[in-house]
C-alpha cells in the first residue's frame, strides 16, 4: 500500500462511484428518502430530551443543553453508523472482490464516507439549532473540523480492523453490537460529565481518555459552550490528556497493518 497510490486516478474514480452508489441505494423505496438522515437523530433527540431533560431534569447546569445534547447524539450516531458500515463493507462487496482486483481499503473508505456525508447533513440541523438557541459565535468554532478529523481517523481504524476480522469471524458483528451498547453509556452523551465528576474525579478522568468521549466533549466546547468539561481541562497533565490522541494514532497504524496483511486473502475467504 504505497501512500502515493492511495488516491491514484483509478482509485479516486472507483471510490467516487462506490460512494455515489451507496448513497443512491441507501433510502431506496422509502417515501421520505434523505430526509430520514435528518429525522432519525431529531427523533432520537426528542425522546432523550423529553426523558432526560424534562422528566429527569438532567443538564440544567449546562447552557444550551438541547444543542449540547443533539451534538452528542449526532456524533455518536456517526460513530455507530460508520463503524458498522465499515465492518460489513468487505463482506457485502464480496461479489466485487471475487471478480476484480482493486485496493480493498477503497471499500472501507467508501463505506465510512457515506456515513460522513450523513454527518454533514446533520450539521445543517445542528447549525439551525445553534442559531435558534442563541449560541454565541466564537472563533473556537473554526477548530470543530479538527474534532471531526480525529473522530474520522478513529472510525477508520476501527472499520479497518473490524472489516478484516468480520471476513474471518462473523461473531465480530455480535460482539461489536454489545460493545457499542456499553460504550453509549461510557460516553457522556445523554448525561453531562459533571454528574460523574460529583461522585468521582478519577472516573470522570478515565471516561475522557476514551477518544470518542474526548472528541464529543471537545466538539461541544468548540461549538456550543466554553463551559464544557473537556479532557484537557479535567486532566491537567498534558502527557495524560494526550492519551486519546495516542490511542487514535496507534490504532490506525495497527488496524492498517492488520487490514493490509489480511486483504490479500479476502477474495478467497469472503
Amino acid at each position, binding site marked *: 500500500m504505497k501512500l502515493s497510490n492511495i488516491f491514484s486516478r483509478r482509485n479516486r474514480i472507483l471510490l467516487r*462511484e462506490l460512494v455515489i*452508489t451507496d448513497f443512491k*441505494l441507501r433510502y431506496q423505496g422509502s417515501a421520505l428518502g434523505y430526509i430520514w438522515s435528518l429525522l432519525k437523530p431529531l427523533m432520537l433527540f426528542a425522546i432523550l430530551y423529553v426523558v432526560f431533560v424534562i422528566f429527569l431534569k438532567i443538564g440544567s447546569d449546562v447552557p444550551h443543553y438541547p444543542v449540547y445534547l443533539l451534538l452528542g447524539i449526532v456524533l455518536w450516531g456517526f460513530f455507530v453508523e460508520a463503524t458498522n458500515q465499515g465492518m460489513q463493507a468487505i463482506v457485502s462487496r464480496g461479489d466485487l472482490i471475487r471478480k476484480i*482486483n482493486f485496493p480493498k481499503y477503497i471499500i472501507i473508505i467508501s463505506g465510512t464516507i457515506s456515513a460522513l456525508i450523513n454527518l454533514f447533513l446533520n450539521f445543517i440541523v445542528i447549525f439551525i439549532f445553534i442559531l435558534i438557541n442563541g449560541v454565541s459565535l466564537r472563533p473556537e468554532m473554526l477548530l470543530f473540523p479538527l474534532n471531526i478529523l480525529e473522530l474520522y481517523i478513529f472510525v477508520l481504524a476501527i472499520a479497518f480492523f473490524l472489516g478484516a476480522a468480520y471476513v*474471518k469471524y462473523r461473531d465480530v458483528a455480535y460482539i461489536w453490537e454489545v460493545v457499542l451498547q456499553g460504550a453509549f453509556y461510557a460516553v457522556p452523551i445523554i448525561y453531562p460529565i459533571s454528574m460523574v465528576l460529583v461522585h468521582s474525579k478519577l472516573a470522570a478522568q478515565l471516561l475522557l481518555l476514551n477518544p470518542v468521549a474526548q472528541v464529543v466533549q471537545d466538539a461541544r466546547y468548540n461549538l456550543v459552550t466554553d463551559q464544557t468539561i473537556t479532557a484537557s481541562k479535567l486532566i491537567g497533565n498534558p502527557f495524560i490528556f494526550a492519551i486519546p490522541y495516542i490511542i487514535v494514532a496507534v490504532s490506525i497504524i495497527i488496524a492498517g497493518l492488520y487490514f493490509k496483511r489480511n486483504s490479500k486473502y479476502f477474495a478467497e475467504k469472503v
Partner: protein
Amino acid sequence: MLGSEEVIVVKDLFKSFKLPHEQSTGIKQNVVNFLRRKKGYENQEVLRDVSFSINKGEFFGIVGRNGSGKSTLLKLLAGIYNPNKGSISINGSLTPFIELGVGFNPELTGRENVYLNGALLGFSRTEMNDMYDSIVEFAELERFMDQKLRNYSSGMQVRLAFSIAIKAESDILILDEVLAVGDAEFQQKCSDYFEKQKAKGQTIVLVTHDMASVQKYCTRAIMIEDGSIIASGNPETVAFEYTKANQIKIENNLSAQQAQTPPDLHDIKTYTTDTTGKRLSSFDVGDSVLLHMEWKNEAICNAGAALIKQSGEGMFATNTLIENVSITGKSCDYRLSLDVAPGKYFFKIRLFGKTENDNVTLIEEGPSILIRASKNNKVDGLVSLDHKWLKIK
C-alpha cells in the same frame, strides 16, 4: 525476468486453498478445533508447478475441464488471488473479464450501472460521458436506459455489460468463457470483436472448456488437468488431448452411474410429450419425442438421458456436459428421434451439477414410452438405421 516479447510469464506457480470441514467462520469453531488439536480445514492443491509464458500479440488459450484449476489460474493472472509459491510477471495493463457486468446493481438504472461498471474498468465520469452514446447504441438498449436493471432480461444485461467491457483498451485481455453467453446474434458480435482485436495484435488470453473456440481463435494453448499442464502447443494438438481425456472420463462415469443409490425423487418431474408439447407416451417408429425434465435443486445445471429398451439394452445416451450445451433455469427439454425398433422403452435420467459427480440425481427408470410398429416401417433389429436400396428398378 521478461523477454522483450513476453507479456506474461508464469513461473513455478503453486496455489492451494484451505477448505473448511464445516461452517467454521465462527470463533467457537476455532476454539473447539484448537482444543481438539484438529485442523478445521483441508488443504486442497489447485495448481501445481505451473509455468508458461505468453508473447505479445498471441491469442492464448487455457483449456481444462470443470474443476481443473483453470479459473483459479485466471484469477491469479488477474491479481484477485495471490500465489502460495512461484511468480507471475505481467508487462502492460491487463483487463480481466471474469464475468460480464461486475458490480451491476439491480436497483440502479441502466444508465447508472454503465457509469458504475465503467468506473470498475477505470473510466472517469467525463470519459464515460463521451462513450455513453456508443455503448448504448452497441447494446441496442436506447429505450431502456432509465429503467432499473432488475427489469432487464438477462440477455439485455449481458448486452449492456459487453458493450461497456469492450471499451476497455488495455494491452492484455483475459476472457473467461464470456463467449458462452447470449443468443446467436450476440455471440456473432463477440466473435467479430475478438477477430478485430486479434487482427489489431492485442494479446488475449481465453480461458474455456470449449475446445471449438480454442481451435477457432487461438494461436497457442495449454491444457490443464488436476492443476498441472498436461499439454501445450498449437490448438490442434491440445484439442486432441482434450477430447481423449474427456472420453476416458465418460466411460468411467457410466460405470459409476450404476453404483448410485436412488435419491429422493419428490423434487423432480419428468414426462414425455410430442413435438407440439402434448403429453403423450406412445409413438410411431421415426417420430420425435420430447422428454421434459424439471427440478428444484439450484445446483443442477446438467442433464443426461438414456433411452433403454424394456429388456435392458441401452439404445443411446448422452448428456449436456459431453455435448457442451448449457442449461439455463431449472428445466430442460430433450428431443430424440425414435429411430428404433417397436417395443417398450424407458428413459434413464441423470441430473447433475457442474461436474459429473456433483449433486447427482439418478432416475433409474424414468418415463416409459411405447413405440408402435408402423405399416410402412417394419424393421427387424434394435434400431432403424437410415438406409436405401440401390440399383433397383
